[in-house]
């Protein structure tokens, strides 16, 4: 047990859509489904131009162990398989499907047979489910532990600490049965002794609902987390729920924990019950440019343009459009951007909110240092980066930075700290690579 005091920042909640049950969006005219919607090797397309596909039909098979299969989200005709440029600037294959408007399920859909742990993990792999909280890490890889006795606690992440986003809240309120089934699966196949829900206390209804569905089960507890961003960060959540510290370079499993997002869990249960893989996502559509904020269930691959159009359009010209929340979300360069597996929100910001405030010199006030949940020192990072001192960056543990944005949010000089941290991390990586090569040569 450590006595580290976890910092963070109080961000505006702006959970405008938390009362709004998700509406299902009808099939868009076409979808573009990227093959790299997860961490790891991209999936390999297994369909060609002209193929007719049904909802839930495999269109991309997993490209390796750390990978995930991809399924058609609408029924219709494959118009092409082509490269598109992703949000990170890298290009990847994507399958373009023209919808027939029928949303006809693929005839091969059937519930998987799951009777033991191996079959459970195989089913999760086939479901195409990845970390739906935003990380996009293939869930089967996370659950496929070698030695089940290592798993002490399974933590269910319902923190949803980003402003605006309420899609996990809606999962907890509207899909409580799926979550309950998911819990039973975890207990049955993972042998999870202790299951703890972590939910930020600004979601009292979700907390009450989760307590209600788990009341008969003494192995499950629901813990309220303070409304201090970033409660949903994996290391932060583990520390606040169990007091355990995940050491640098180690995984949660090394301290006996597995963390699963609530929506991920609900999706696993649904797949095992129905056999319908991950083909749609619930997302929060909000932001100052959006006419009527709401939660929508949309087919994966739907363009943001179609999403906003169905949601009711804009009340002001959107100047910045995000995938995800305002703290860690990615600004996209075009509304053609498709919704991906790990998209849980899209925000359209009008002129005023889209403008990044002007940078001023660092006044050394220490707000970044004192708000970093992981006790890192952005002031020292900036200094080391300006001197290109990679040894200092290594010693200061820039690699631990999870880019949660607390430092930059709090900075009165509005320094572009996360951009600097990204740069510093890549500088450090290439320095470490060079050093390793040097050492190899010398040896």
């Amino acid at each position, binding site marked *: 047990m450590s006595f580290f005091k976890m910092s963070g920042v109080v961000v505006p909640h702006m959970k405008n859509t938390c009362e709004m049950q998700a509406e299902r969006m009808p099939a868009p005219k076409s979808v573009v489904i990227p093959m790299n919607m997860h961490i790891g090797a991209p999936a390999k397309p297994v369909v060609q131009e002209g193929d007719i596909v049904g909802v839930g039909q495999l269109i991309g098979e997993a490209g390796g162990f750390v990978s995930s299969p991809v399924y058609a989200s609408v029924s219709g005709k494959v118009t092409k398989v082509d490269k598109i440029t992703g949000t990170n600037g890298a290009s990847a294959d994507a399958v373009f499907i023209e919808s027939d408007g029928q949303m006809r399920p693929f005839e091969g859909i059937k519930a998987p047979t799951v009777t033991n742990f191996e079959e459970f993990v195989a089913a999760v792999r086939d479901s195409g489910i990845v970390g739906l909280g935003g990380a996009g890490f293939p869930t089967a890889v996370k659950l496929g532990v070698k030695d089940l006795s290592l798993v002490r606690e399974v933590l269910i992440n319902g923190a949803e600490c980003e402003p605006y986003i309420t899609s996990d809240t809606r999962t907890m309120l509207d899909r409580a049965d799926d979550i309950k089934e998911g819990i039973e699966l975890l207990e049955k196949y993972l042998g999870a002794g202790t299951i703890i829900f972590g939910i930020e206390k600004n979601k009292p209804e979700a907390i009450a609902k989760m307590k209600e569905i788990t009341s008969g089960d003494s192995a499950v507890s629901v813990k309220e987390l303070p409304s201090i961003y970033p409660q949903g960060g994996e290391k932060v959540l583990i520390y606040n729920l169990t007091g355990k510290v995940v050491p640098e370079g180690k995984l949660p499993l090394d301290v006996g924990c597995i963390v699963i997002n609530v929506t991920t869990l609900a999706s696993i249960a649904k797949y095992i019950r129905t056999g319908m893989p991950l083909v749609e996502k619930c997302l929060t559509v909000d932001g100052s440019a959006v006419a009527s904020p709401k939660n929508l269930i949309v087919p994966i691959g739907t363009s943001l343009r179609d999403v906003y159009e169905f949601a009711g359009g804009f009340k002001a010209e959107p100047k910045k459009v995000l995938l995800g929340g305002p703290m860690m979300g990615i*600004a996209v360069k075009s509304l053609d951007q498709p919704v991906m597996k790990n998209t849980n929100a899209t925000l359209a910001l009008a002129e005023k909110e889209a403008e990044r405030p002007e940078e001023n*010199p660092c*006044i*050394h006030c220490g707000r970044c240092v004192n708000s970093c949940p*992981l006790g890192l020192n952005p002031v020292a990072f900036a200094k080391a980066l300006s001197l290109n001192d990679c040894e200092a960056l290594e010693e200061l543990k820039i690699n631990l930075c999870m880019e949660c944005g607390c430092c930059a949010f709090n*900075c*009165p000089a*509005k320094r572009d700290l996360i951009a600097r941290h990204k740069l510093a991390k890549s500088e450090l990586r290439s320095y470490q690579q060079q050093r390793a090569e040097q050492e190899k040569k010398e040896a």
Partner: protein
Amino acid sequence: MEENLKVSVSPHIFSKRTTRNLMLDVVIALLPAAIASVVIFGAGSLLVIATCVISCILFEALFNLIIKRKQTIGDFSAIITGLLLALNLPVNIPLWQAVIGSFVAIIIVKNLFGGLGYNFANPAITGRIFMLIAFTGSMTEAVFPAAVDTVAGATPLGALASGEEVGVSLLDMFLGLRGGALGETCALALIIGGIYLICRKVITWHTPVTFILTVFVFSLIYSGDFETALIYVLSGGLLIGAIFMATDYVTTPTTALGQVVFGLGCGLITCLIRFYGSYPEGVSFSILFMNILTPYIEKITMKKPFGGVKK
């Protein structure tokens, strides 16, 4: 369709705190002390304040013009330097000396090192120390409040140093009816400013409280008398130094622990100079000295990265 969307690295929302509104809060917190100085020392104090503030702004603007840098006077930091410097000067300081002090603070200490955020020493304090050494006569002349009848004698610290009777009641000390620099005498006004800064979360209690407590404890040990120790706390520039100068972001540590170390060091050095030095007052010197140590204090008091593993 062309949307012309802006792209930037996260985060996309920011706190309402800006450099400018932080500085403005400090200016507001200094106002009670500035008003008290006019009440205590008369209208002459307005002249000193105006001279320092205006010359600091002008020097900053001029420097920016010469080096072709974007104008920075809008960030209010030059105003704070001017205000702080003025509040550290006696009321009858020749105004040309105040202008020279402002020059040293703004040009030499602040801008030659790169301007706001880059200076290692507190500009107002270093400007004051320069003046103390260059213009010792006018800087140390004990000027008594217009509101008090006494016309001669030493400042309380001077009296304590030479073993004379202080001759000012504790209540008068608290209200600032004693000899000294413009803004340093009225403890009440300074404490109001300090509470404002803490409530507005501009500063934390760590530096001022540690600094003042350290001076109190050592004074108590040194004098063996509770009342004398209180006089030590209320005299000289301790309160203005501890609340406004030792909490300057740029030149002091960032973490709570670092700030406690900083406050302790300031208190200790202040007492050493007060008890054994040839100057009756040591607050400015102590802060300047600790400014120099700040990078090292930062280094040893840095937080431990969460889950970090030593390699």
